């Protein structure tokens, strides 16, 4: 009963926040309501996620769906921290609806419940999960700035200014923020790969086992490395950079959804 209540609160909070954040594009005063709704949903989710750890001493991270819930929780938490900075104020209008869909997609689906002792999170695998999650958050934010850049640029190019012209930050700023995020994400993901390799060593005995997960993670990392290379060496900016950041995140999505569904590995996600 409590679990259902918490789920409902999370659902309603994130749903309301999505609506209010989109409305905030039209009327900035809605942002206050949106923020309230996010805090509400996120708090409910926090209680939902930490309740089994506190009461039972287990953590529900066995399935991909559970991990998605944690991902949503980290993304939203990160957003709540950075939203106070002016450049990030409008991110919510794009990020929160996506977060809501991710959450509904992962939680609404019927999936087997599984639990684990939290001790598993202490080892290499735990480190891998934590750091990889952090870098995915960074990559998602970069993709969001890519979307925002494209939307505003489209209005400016077509000379039909509407919402985004008025509401979104300057093009150059969004371009810079996206590239800086990826600049942070690439070394972070390299660390995740290192922890991942340590995990693989424990399971297979060698650092590199050519598993689908490992290979795709490496490809993801390369894709972002190439992004930086294109900017630094070929001077890519703005439009192309924004498209690249968006497409690159599709690779990330495939890495943590596609690969896990198509090639089930020892971790389950």
């Amino acid at each position, binding site marked *: 009963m409590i679990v259902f209540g918490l789920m409902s609160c999370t659902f309603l909070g994130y749903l309301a926040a999505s609506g209010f954040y989109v409305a905030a594009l039209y009327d900035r*005063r809605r942002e206050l309501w949106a923020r309230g709704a996010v805090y509400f949903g996120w708090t409910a989710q926090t209680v939902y996620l930490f309740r089994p750890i506190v009461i039972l001493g287990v953590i529900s991270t066995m399935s991909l769906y559970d991990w998605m819930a944690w991902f949503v929780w980290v993304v939203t938490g990160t957003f709540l921290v950075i939203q106070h900075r002016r450049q990030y104020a409008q991110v919510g209008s794009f990020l929160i609806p996506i977060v809501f869909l991710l959450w509904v997609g992962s939680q609404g689906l019927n999936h087997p419940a599984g639990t684990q002792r939290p001790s598993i999170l202490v080892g290499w695998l735990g480190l891998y999960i934590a750091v990889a999650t952090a870098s995915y958050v960074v990559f998602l934010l970069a993709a969001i700035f890519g979307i925002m850049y494209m939307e505003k640029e489209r209005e400016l190019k077509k*000379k039909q200014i509407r919402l985004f012209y008025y509401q979104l930050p300057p*093009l150059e700023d969004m371009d810079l923020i996206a590239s800086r995020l990826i600049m942070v994400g690439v070394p972070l993901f390299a660390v995740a790969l290192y922890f991942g390799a340590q995990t693989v060593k424990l399971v297979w005995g060698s650092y590199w086992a050519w598993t689908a997960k490992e290979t795709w993670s490496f490809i993801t990392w390369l894709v972002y490395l190439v992004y930086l290379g294109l900017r630094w060496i070929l001077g890519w900016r703005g439009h192309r950079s924004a498209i690249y950041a968006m497409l690159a995140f599709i690779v990330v999505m495939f890495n943590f959804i596609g690969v896990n569904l198509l090639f089930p590995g020892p971790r389950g996600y």
Partner: protein
Amino acid sequence: MQIQVVGLNHQTAPIEIRERVSLGPDQIARAYTEGHPYLAIRGVVIVSTCNRTEVYWAGAATLAEILSWWEVLVGIPRGDFVDHLYWYANSEAYTHLFRVTSGLDSMVLGETQILGQIKASYQLANGYQAVGALHRLFQYALRVGKRAHGETGISHNALSVGHAVVELAKKVFGDLEPLTALVIGAGETGSLVARHLAASGVGNIVITSRTADHAHRLALDVKGVGVEFGRLTTAMREADIIVSSTSAPHPIITLEKARAAFKGQGQRLRFVFDLAVPRDVEPDVAKVGSGIFLYDVDDIEQIVVANYRQRQKEAIKVERIVQEERVALEEELGATEVGPVIRLLREKAELIRQQELSRAMQRLSTLTPEERSVVEETTRIMMNKFLNDPMTSMRRWGNDGGKAVYIDAIRELFRLREEKAPSITLPASGDIASREA
């Protein structure tokens, strides 16, 4: 007490009338120091800008008296301007002033200058101790102005070509300080835009013109650099913002020239403004690179129109603030009018209650403390319930000049005259002249 305003503005009067009846600093000073011997005024503020002249006053003075005062001050018979006047009283006057300070009544919707002008007028009047009963009205009005600009976008988004160029550049580049702007053509438009760019902090401004002399003179003016017209391509290559406004009959920036200038920089963000008619920039220049934005005069005009629509949308929010504050002001002014009467009535009722209660308690000496408190509580509740309706009504009357006489009736009815309360009827004296003396 009545608060009224009479005046004219750019909507009601042509410039020929406005300039004749406007009150200059000397006339305003004279108005405040000499006052008017027959005027029963409890406060006056004169507002005079190039778009409006208005007199706000509180007290019994009639419109005719104010007009005769005005015509003496400016030396023009009122018949010449009376047709162009508007006249509002009380809540309509408050609404009017609030709309003025928030920029809704301005020629350029949402402009902020008027707020400063009203503030200055208020402070000037205050310097002569003339504001009197208008203090709260003007404090509210200044707050409405601040709220309108702070809480809504009424003053955002450019409504002129010069501002729109800067605004568009900011939408693309954000911070203009590290940028280089190239202005081609040092004519009227070129100079205007160059000054706007300099004022909004563009780091480097480069001016070029077929007449090198003009370019150098403008460059000096905006602390920029003049460049020979022959070095246009190089200058284009270095510029982030390019503004062209020459009177040349043929395009200055052709496709080939743009290709040469921007070679290898197709992705660099660059804003090209073509403000010339006929156009200076070939439309295909926009396709040279994905980072190039090319806007001509019509495009910018379109932005201005969209911006204006945006301000109109915000104006609805401002109207809401105006009404909100009007209600608050009316309540406050009403409360100061009826406050003393309400207090007297309540005091009288409380006195009677205390007297009767103590008398009753002496006769009911056998009651337990609980029973005593019940009796006491009952009397208090009876009194409060009985007084509730009259109090509410009286607070409402306070806002309504026409019902001021009811308040007097209440005094008569309940004989609330034993102490000298401040009169709520208009004083016979108290005009500016006597206050000054």
